[in-house]
């Protein structure tokens, strides 16, 4: 839990176990890595570039969290989402 405290109130990217990427402001965490995101959106990867889907407030169960990344706002602003073409991320297979 202490490990994630430094990311609180910041823009984070959560990669989920089923292969989705969700970006939002980190509002809450607990010891099982349950995560509350505010003002979040999903980035859907496909051959036509990245589609952004607004989601609002989301609680993601800890079991479903794979990676939490601290988003560098400067770098993120420079991204041209339409030009990034990639396959959807693979799900976690245990």
């Amino acid at each position, binding site marked *: 839990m202490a*490990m994630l405290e430094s990311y609180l109130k910041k823009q984070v990217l959560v*990669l989920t176990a089923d292969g989705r990427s969700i970006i939002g402001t980190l509002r809450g965490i607990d010891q099982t*890595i349950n995560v509350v995101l505010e003002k979040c959106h999903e980035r859907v990867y496909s051959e036509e570039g990245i589609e952004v889907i607004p989601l609002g407030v989301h609680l993601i169960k800890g079991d479903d969290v794979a990676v939490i990344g601290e988003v560098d706002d400067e770098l993120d602003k420079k991204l041209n989402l339409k030009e990034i073409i990639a396959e959807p991320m693979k799900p976690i297979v245990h």
Partner: protein
Amino acid sequence: MLFFSFYKSLVGKEITVELKNDLSITGLLQSVDQFLNIKLKDIKVNEEDKYPYMISVKNCFIRGSVVRYVHLPAEDVDVETLQDHSRLEAREQKKQNKQHQEQKSSTATTATTSTTV
């Protein structure tokens, strides 16, 4: 607990974490906890063109349960010591289990004697 201490000795070193979704992330080990959750600094995803999902991320937290492999710098790992400590821990665990079973069986016999009385 052994590997938790082992990872703690590698803080500050560059490691590559391969996840169970085939993503490989290289970065400096910042911290680790008892679940072997890992925090990395200054990360780079291997094959970034193919996996651009974390382009704007510099620092990240990886849940221990999604880690498949951790690639470590060979020069920072003392394999012999690690092996010794692993054996030691395994031996202690065995001893504890044996003690536990002996305790169990002794309480069971006292229970049966008390019923016969």
